């Protein structure tokens, strides 16, 4: 049975400021959705809140994953259910090798009783190494990645490829990709897009959150949604993405009477920047 991520009338604030103002969306395993919106529309807030970032408080609404209410769950419990977030700004963890980290993470999410308890048993080293090597080969990732410290000194493109490698290893049911194309040159977008395409299939549901449609030329979504001022204002197919490519967000802003000044609020788009080095 396919698993669904169901978001109902979700409202999220950062401090006193409402950011997500009643959002509804359902993503099923095997479906590809694109959630597009300009800076400040609340995209990253939504992505982080769905994964359980403690910075964001959910005011009201409902999020279920496979019928389970996830809003009360810790991020690791959500991961164990099969939810994944590819970060816009992956954090560096100095001294922790990619291989050690992935072995721990894979062991954690593949535990039989996904109840959020401690990871007691690591998957056997030999089997893990084999699997990691295969996935790295499949995604065209250099084997030296395994020995490098997690995201430390990675270029923008390497960070995003590392996120895709983690996605491949953790085999989630639903993956949220937060601005996976941001900060990449056109070649890097192509490499990441092609890697992602390798992973697309009936067992994976994808929610691509993006500002620009360029990643979507590699992974073509069946559903496109436009996020403006904390709400999904339009939903449709590929033609919506094409419209944005041609005309930008202004016609939609005009249609819904939302002024761009309000939206160009950098603090809202990336409220976590202060916490980051």
């Amino acid at each position, binding site marked *: 049975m396919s698993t669904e991520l169901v978001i109902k009338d979700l409202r999220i604030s950062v401090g006193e400021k409402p950011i997500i103002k009643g959002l509804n969306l359902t993503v099923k395993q095997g479906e590809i959705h694109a959630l597009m919106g300009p800076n400040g529309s609340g995209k990253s807030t939504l992505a982080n809140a769905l994964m359980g970032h403690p910075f964001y408080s959910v005011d009201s609404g409902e999020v279920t994953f496979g019928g389970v209410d996830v809003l009360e769950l810790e991020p690791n419990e959500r991961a164990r259910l099969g939810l994944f977030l590819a970060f816009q700004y992956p954090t560096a963890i100095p*001294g922790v090798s990619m291989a050690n980290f992935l072995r721990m993470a894979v062991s954690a999410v593949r535990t039989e009783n996904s109840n959020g308890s401690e990871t007691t048993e690591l998957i056997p080293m030999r089997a893990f190494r084999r699997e990691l090597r295969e996935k790295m080969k499949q995604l065209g990732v250099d084997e030296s990645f395994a020995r490098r410290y997690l995201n430390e000194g990675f270029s923008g493109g390497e960070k995003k490829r590392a996120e895709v490698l983690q996605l491949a290893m953790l085999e989630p049911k639903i993956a949220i990709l937060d601005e996976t194309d941001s900060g990449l040159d056109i070649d890097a977008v192509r490499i990441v897009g092609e890697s992602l395409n390798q992973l697309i299939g009936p067992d994976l549901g994808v929610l691509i959150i993006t500002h620009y449609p360029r990643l979507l030329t590699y992974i073509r979504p069946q559903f496109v949604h436009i996020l403006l001022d904390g709400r999904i204002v339009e939903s449709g197919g590929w033609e919506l993405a094409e419209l944005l490519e041609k005309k930008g967000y202004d016609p939609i802003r005009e249609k819904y009477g939302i002024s761009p000044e309000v939206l160009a609020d950098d603090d809202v788009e990336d409220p976590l920047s202060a*916490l980051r080095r």
Partner: protein
Amino acid sequence: MTQHMTQPETETVDIGVSSDYKYGFHDDIKPVFKSRKGLDTEIINQMCDVKGEPDWMRQYRLKAYEIFKQKPDVNWGGDLSGLDFDDIYYYVKASDRTERSWDDVPDDIKRTFDRLGIPEAERKFLAGVGAQYDSEVVYHSLQEELDKVGVIFVDTDTALREYPDLMKEYFGTLIPSADNKFAALNSAIWSGGSFIYVPPGVKVDYPLQAYFRINTENMGQFERTLIIVDEGAEVNYVEGCTAPSYSSASLHSAVVEIVCKKGSRVRYTTIQNWANNVYNLVTKRAFAYEDAHMEWIDGNLGSKLTMKYPSVYMMEPGARGEILSIAFASKGQHQDAGAKVIHCAPHTTSRITSKSISKDGGRSSYRGEVRVMKGAKGCKSTVQCDALILDEKSRSDTYPVIQIDENDVNIGHEARVSKIGEEQLFYLMSRGLSEDEASAMIVNGFIEPLVKELPMEYAVEMNRLIQLQMEGSVG
């Protein structure tokens, strides 16, 4: 000279912890000889009689005892008010003779080693191990190869009997009794410890190891180690400590002296995991002569209070001193650890790397000294101190002293304090790790640059100990 102080992140995480000591058991071993509590000349004389020591050592001890009495109490570093010198057994002998083979080691002592979980794989090293039980080495089997190449590896009491010339020549020459109050105490009442001599050009290609334990309530342990590495020789010595926990305070006060002659390479590794009622007050010093490299790797996880600053005196051109220090201070612990490098000759180089972690109200301090003597031109020294503080109750301080009496030098000092970032925790938790697992992973990553320098089995043990500390579930 550069100095940076940054505080990149401000969030804190509260991680539950229990500070119960993991190896908090004690076996019922009957000491063969045990002095009464407290210290006086009668006890020192009694000890010399029991051990049958030569008169020069008796006089050395009695003189050191006078110095100990005259020295004022130590009033810096950590809080020593809980330490009562009159409430300590100064000499306990657990077994009558020094064992030569593993089969001869008494069963209850073997059982204690078993319960310490010394892995089977390490047994192969036992031929090269001097395992200190109570105040005396009870097991000391020397591998034949060591004999063949002329390497001496015995407990220091044996060295006093069998190698009196070497002992007389070097004993107390690096750390005289008057160096500090605890060195004086050790000089008065020392017992056990390791004595190593490596002849010119001999390279010992596996680590010589020793295990240390304290097992009599209120007893002090005052081992004395002397290592002499002759010209062009190499040796790697490893000591790991683990002690049963008792309700009243214990004192561990060792003295370690190392002579690194021309062109030698010496590495001395310590993983200290004393029970958290132990005062661990240790003086460690090495002299490095022409082109010699001396390296201290010093990991402090246990004890109530540790005050330890391994030092390297670079005596001749080309000498190099390196100190890697790891300190982990949890509830009720103060790790006052650090390093000293003294450039006495031109063109000498040194590096100090310190990593400390404080959690659950623990306090870790870096106390270090870089000194360049007049005329020591062209010296280079770098110091890097990283501190990780895991919660708001915990504390970290740095006390660097830099004294330069020469212009033509290159000295760098860098200190950084950080806290576990909420972003790092969230990132790891989003991949399925629990909060404790994520914290432990970040801490292990923090000390990884030092842990990778440890022998494999110690690296594994180190990671495991940190995991246990972080999970807060020990026992």
